[in-house]
């Protein structure tokens, strides 16, 4: 059985973000990158399933982006994926979610994947759209926000996280796209022998031009830091005076009372 896991490399969230000169995304200088956290859950789940299925299963890890994303692919290979595919695209950040999904679908269409795992969303742009659009493009079943996953001869039983702390058990069949949520599993720490083996695993590089992205439907007009709101004000002192002052501020600023 062929399994695909789609991962994205994202900036570390502790980065002191600066906007690039074009004003449409972050400046990547001095930025540390890592595998999108939700994609780590996807890799772990895919590797665990592959190990369970045994010799007949093969796991491919795919990522789109500039040269640096090879690091994320290598980590997934060290975690246990069999081979890597890198769609080399330095302008990836200018593509919208439908284009990214189209590129993946175009790559995947003739490779006989029965299951595709990916993260619920990316930590940097957070649209949570690539997985669902990909499922539509490939005509696969789709289960999102998965926190529990079982696979038995084509039958999928997944536990989904719903709003308000609810859970739902859903059943579907392969082929399917599964988007993974925090709580699904604990991603493994790559062992040294696996890191060494990963260095020798196949890593195919595919120029972006070779996969069809289609036209953009959404363009980023501007990326910016949210404007600083005014600093908070501490009211201290005599309770009666504080209360008077509080009422005055609320009245001035909101007109509610």
């Amino acid at each position: 059985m062929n399994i695909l896991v789609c991962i994205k490399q994202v900036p570390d969230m502790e980065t002191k973000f600066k906007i690039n000169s074009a004003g449409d995304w972050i400046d990547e200088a001095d930025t540390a990158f890592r595998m999108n956290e939700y994609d780590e859950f996807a890799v772990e789940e895919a590797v665990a399933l592959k190990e369970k299925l045994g010799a007949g299963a093969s796991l491919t890890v795919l990522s789109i982006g500039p040269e640096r994303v090879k690091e994320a692919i290598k980590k997934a290979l060290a975690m246990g994926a069999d081979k890597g595919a890198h769609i080399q695209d330095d302008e990836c950040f200018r593509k919208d979610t439908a284009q990214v999904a189209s590129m993946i679908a175009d790559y995947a269409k003739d490779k006989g994947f029965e299951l595709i795992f990916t993260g619920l969303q990316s930590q940097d742009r957070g649209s949570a759209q690539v997985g669902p659009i990909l499922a539509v493009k490939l005509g696969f079943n789709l289960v999102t926000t998965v926190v529990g996953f079982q696979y038995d001869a084509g039958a999928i039983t997944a536990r989904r996280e719903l709003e308000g702390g609810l859970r739902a058990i859903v059943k579907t069949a392969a082929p399917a796209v599964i988007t993974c949520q925090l709580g699904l599993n604990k991603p493994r720490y790559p062992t040294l022998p696996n890191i060494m083996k990963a260095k020798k695993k196949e890593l195919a590089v595919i120029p972006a031009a070779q996969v069809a992205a289609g036209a953009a439907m959404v363009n980023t007009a501007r990326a910016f830091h949210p404007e600083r709101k005014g600093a908070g004000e501490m009211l201290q002192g005599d309770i009666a005076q504080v209360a008077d002052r509080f009422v005055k501020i609320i009245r001035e600023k909101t007109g509610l009372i």
Partner: protein
Amino acid sequence: MYLLALAAVGFMAYGLIQRVRALLHAGKSTADIKLQIGRALWQTLAQLKAISHGGAAGWGHAIFFWCFLILTAGTTLVFIQADFTDLLFGYKFLKGGFYKIFSLALDLAGLAAILAMGGLFIRRYIFRPVGLASEPADALIHILLFLALATGFVVEGLRMAATELDMNMALAQWSPVGLVVAKVFHGMDMASLTMAHKITWWIHFLICLAFFIAIPLTKLRHIFYIPVNYALAPAGASGKLSTMALDDETAEKFGASQPADLLFKDLFDTAACVKCKRCQDQCPAHATGKPLSPMKLTQDIGAALASGVGSSLVEAVGEDAVWACVTCRACEAVCPAGVEHVRKIIEMRRGMALMEGRFPGDEVVRALDAIEVNGNPLGAALAARGDWAEGLALTGEGMEVLYFTGCYACYDRRNIKVARSFMTILGKLGVKAGTLGKKEKCCGEPARKMGNEYLYQTVAAENIESIHATGAKKIVTTCPHCFHTLANEYPDLGLDPQISVEHYTTFLAARMASFKPNGPIAPVTYHDSCYMGRYNGVFSQPRELLAAIGAPVTEMAKSRETSFCCGGGGGRILAEEKLGTRINAAKAAMAGDTGAAMVVSNCPFCLTMLEDGVKTGGLEEKMKPVDLAELLADRM
């Protein structure tokens, strides 16, 4: 008689060698062992390790050893004369003045040995120190040694009663103890004396043979194994770890999961251990209720070896014990047998980390991940690494000193103050200093001590490249962990050995004249960090610097070589302390007991731990943790 003696000695030698041969085949390659025979002889004969940190029991052992050595030498001389020189050549050297001194020395040695034995017996069986386990074999050893000494005196007394008493009192005076015994037999007829002498001689002889036979069967084997263990101990920087060959493509295994993966010396340690529990008494993990005793660890590895070279080490030792270690090396500092505990623990951690991706907690995995991605375990932004130095004059060109700042001094608010104090000092000294800025990464020490040699070597290689690119000839650190790693470990990975690496303590101690008091200062206590103290022998310089600025130092109950760790070593700074009580609280309490107003340290981990320990221990009003650099900066 000689056949019996030969058989006993042969049995002893066979037993001792058999045991070691099993070890030789079990452990890893022994090819790189360089025996330090001279050092081993000196350490053994002078009983250096038995005495230091051994208290009265250590002295008891040393006195007994020296006495027994004299008795053995004396007996050997008698044997040589009686059965060799006199028998074959009619030559006697035990005569005249020499014989008198000889008799006196043996007599007194025998008496002192009995007294030392008595003292040690009272300690073990009457006072029963906590943690000292006694086995039936220990009782047997006491009985054997006591009987050997006692029957020796009876034999001597009988001989003197027959040949010296009433006849040659001038000579008898030189054997005062024998004389006392001889007087007991005074008046017996010659035939009875001769018969009694013959019988007790044989009893004495058989007891001595039993002693030889007991050596390989009981912990008496330490008589031979400990000197050998001293000889096996490596020369060079103490606590230095082996740098693993990670690019070895034929290697399928890293670290130690079974006894066969350990070095011969590590296995030999288990044979040399005498379970004296000195290590256990010093262990901060043990003292705070964690499931680690360095003594038990050594014994457990020995037991694992006995059950097979392929048995699981971590199962035998216990995973929690392996992760509890703070690598402070207090155990090794006091071990009279020269056992090296920490290397074994690191090898087991390497096995778990590199082969299984196993760590003591998720927080450790997150910190390691942060080192990998952000270059620091705190998860702070890579690009913010140089922010601490905002407004300070740092040099790129013409740098005299490269200040390897370290993660905590770069990012941790409390330790940034230390870094800035050190820069103030350098400014006042007129030393042009620079840093690696954003290029600096974690030195890798905490990751390495957690077993992740791969991550350590990755960041180390990047740091070495950045250091070489600056052309710096001198590196100074404010962190003892950075210092130890750069100075003693990085050269293995290619750091130019021409580059000198110093911790600021020694760097400033060499400029002692620049520091002076600026008025009265409250009494302080100084905390010896493990990596400056035990690992690198820097004990006096910080105290001299404190003296130079007029700070009166009150020492803690444990200091210098037996200093009690803050709890942050061995990568534990990255880990939550889930078992037992908090080491930093115990440390802060120990510092608080001195009544000092400040506890001075010179390590960012120690400062962090002490700040925490002082808060949780409710000592905030009484005592303030400070870094030595902070005190020095205002006193120049």
